[in-house]
């Protein structure tokens, strides 16, 4: 007998998990992962962990919310949530996103077009609670009952009543971390309803009103970024030490006597990478350095607090932190007197600094910003680099479109023009461009290693991307062929690394991943030895 379909009423009910996850129900993967026994496991929480943390949604804990000690604690949090809910719909308190949020609350006609666009919902085997409309339906009922005048009576009469209970609160928090905010749903919606924004605004109530957010986003994320200089914990002296090491590497790899321009006042450009690149994928900032040097670009990096880390985790959960980081970045550029900021290969940096910061930065703080994708493409097209695409001919290449650069900002062609100029064997995943599938690590997921959440992120959130990558290379899937997935975003690379590791994709299928700038350098004829190393990273 089919299980009873979950309804919005169920989220308030007491008791254990709303749904049990069963990998046998997930959409099957193509070869060589078409057997269930090859599926990585989603670990069950231990009894002790279940006693400590709320996990009543699907048995997964992304946020590690401790179970409250008393009924009074629960009541206090419910009151804060309710106050925050009201503020969310007040123009003085939510000037950033009120209009699209109101449109989403008032005009959704429940046509479910978004459900077919949501990869998490589809890949999970259509688990009801992951439906984009389920999440926003809960917020809509809360809004109509507790925010709109006469809501309590009208909600009951319309049959859309909802009870704001502790169980609802704890489950809604987790549910706001089951969506990567890729905004495919918003793109598919015929009237522009934005359920991705709903996810983000729910997270915002929890962070701004209750002080609840995943530790990696807040305490070790934006707070550490502002205080220590980077969400990686890298301090300015640590950054300079890494720079020195990478300068040595560049010398060894290329023979160039290279010195990085740091804090150079009056440079044309401030280049800001995601600091994770320096630690996990140093070949990416090194490749930028080689390209910019060869093209004769007058640029600088910054060693100021936060100036060497372009991330802005506030974009995922909190307006205040978002603004603080954006203003810090713009202030550093203003002080250096650069003409523009160029943002490295990091998707959410693009979103925060180019798109959202436009609503925050005023006057001379509004320094022009540009994507590294268009910037690199101009350099490649200018002819200032001597390029031989045959140097990348030993592998088949495909391209991942990071949601924030591509769907959100519409940067589609520049990265393709670059790849076509430097790689003779390029093939497109389907779908691609603005229709792409998220890597599964968006919305902060790639950096949240809490409890069994990484298992869910791999098996459910990353599933669509893995399928796409296997499909595009299906005719040459055996390990004798070298295949490369170009992903010009640090966050996506982190997710792809974990996804590939979990399934053994490099060992089994010989598919490696990496950034875009590295492919350019690998094609530069002035560099004697190959820049790209065919080894797992």
């Amino acid at each position, binding site marked *: 007998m089919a299980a009873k379909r979950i309804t919005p009423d169920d989220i308030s009910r007491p008791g254990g998990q709303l749904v049990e996850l069963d990998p046998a129900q997930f959409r099957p993967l193509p070869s060589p992962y078409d057997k269930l026994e090859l599926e990585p496991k989603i670990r069950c929480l231990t009894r002790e962990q279940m006693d400590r943390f709320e996990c009543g949604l699907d048995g997964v804990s992304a946020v590690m919310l401790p179970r409250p000690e008393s009924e009074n604690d629960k009541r206090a949090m419910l009151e804060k949530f309710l106050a925050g809910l009201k503020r969310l719909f007040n123009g003085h308190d939510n000037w950033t996103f009120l209009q699209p949020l109101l449109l989403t609350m008032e005009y959704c006609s429940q046509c479910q077009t978004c459900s077919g666009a949501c990869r998490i919902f589809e890949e999970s085997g259509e688990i009801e609670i992951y439906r984009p409309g389920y999440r926003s339906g809960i917020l809509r009922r809360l809004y109509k009952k507790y925010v709109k005048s006469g809501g309590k009576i009208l909600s009951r009469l319309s049959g859309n009543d909802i009870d704001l209970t502790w169980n609802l609160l704890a489950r809604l928090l987790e549910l706001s971390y089951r969506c990567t905010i890729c905004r495919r749903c918003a793109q598919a919606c015929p009237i522009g309803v934005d359920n991705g924004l709903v996810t983000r605004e729910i997270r915002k109530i929890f962070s701004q009103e209750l002080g609840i957010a995943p530790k990696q986003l807040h305490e*070790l*994320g934006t707070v*550490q970024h502002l205080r220590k200089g980077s969400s990686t*914990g*890298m*301090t300015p002296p640590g950054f300079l030490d890494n720079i020195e090491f990478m300068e040595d590497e560049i010398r060894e790899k290329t023979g160039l006597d290279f010195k990085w321009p740091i804090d150079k006042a009056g440079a044309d450009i401030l280049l800001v990478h995601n*600091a994770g690149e320096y*630690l996990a994928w140093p070949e990416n900032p090194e490749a930028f350095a080689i390209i910019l040097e060869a093209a004769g670009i007058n640029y600088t990096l910054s060693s100021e607090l936060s100036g060497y880390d372009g991330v802005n985790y506030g974009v995922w959960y909190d307006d205040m932190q978002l603004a603080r980081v954006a203003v810090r970045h713009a202030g550093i550029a203003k002080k250096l007197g650069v003409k523009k900021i160029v943002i490295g290969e990091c998707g959410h940096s693009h979103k925060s600094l180019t798109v959202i910061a436009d609503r925050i930065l005023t006057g001379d703080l509004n320094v022009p910003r540009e994507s590294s994708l268009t910037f690199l493409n101009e350099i490649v097209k200018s002819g200032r680099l001597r390029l031989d695409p045959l140097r990348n001919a030993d592998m088949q290449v495909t391209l991942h479109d990071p949601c924030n650069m591509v769907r959100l900002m519409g940067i589609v062609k520049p990265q393709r023009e670059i790849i076509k100029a430097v790689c003779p064997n390029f093939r497109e995943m389907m779908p691609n461009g603005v229709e792409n599938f998220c890597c599964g690590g968006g919305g902060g997921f790639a950096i949240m*290693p809490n409890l069994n959440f990484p298992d869910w992120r791999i098996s459910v959130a990353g599933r669509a991307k893995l399928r796409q990558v296997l499909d595009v290379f299906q005719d040459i899937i055996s390990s004798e062929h070298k295949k490369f997935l170009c992903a010009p975003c640090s*966050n996506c690379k982190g997710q792809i690394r974990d996804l590939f590791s979990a399934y053994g994709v490099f060992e089994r299928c010989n598919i490696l991943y990496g950034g875009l700038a590295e492919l350019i350098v690998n094609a530069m004829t002035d560099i004697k030895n190959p820049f790209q190393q065919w080894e797992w990273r």
Partner: protein
Amino acid sequence: MPLFDCGSFNIEVDEDGFMQDTGAWNQEIAGALANAEGVAEMTENHWKIVNYLREYYLKFGIAPMVRKLCKETGFSLKEIYTMFPSGPAKGACKVAGLAKPTGCV
């Protein structure tokens, strides 16, 4: 907070077994953590890696780049994985009493 059993005493660790109070680290704790990470015996080579990580961490407040770790200690990444089966970050750094890596790494 979960506790980790070092034999004669316990230390506080996070959900992934990283030390909470990294200042309380000593060789005895390192030995116990190594054991839990699948290291049968801490050899001179193991200590070379752990001591380098520890010194770097005390100086810069963060783990070094993996490539720097390899270069400075003279071990390849593969050799480090052989010595610390869970790898440089989740294995060697944990044994050296470093905090869990954060950010987009």
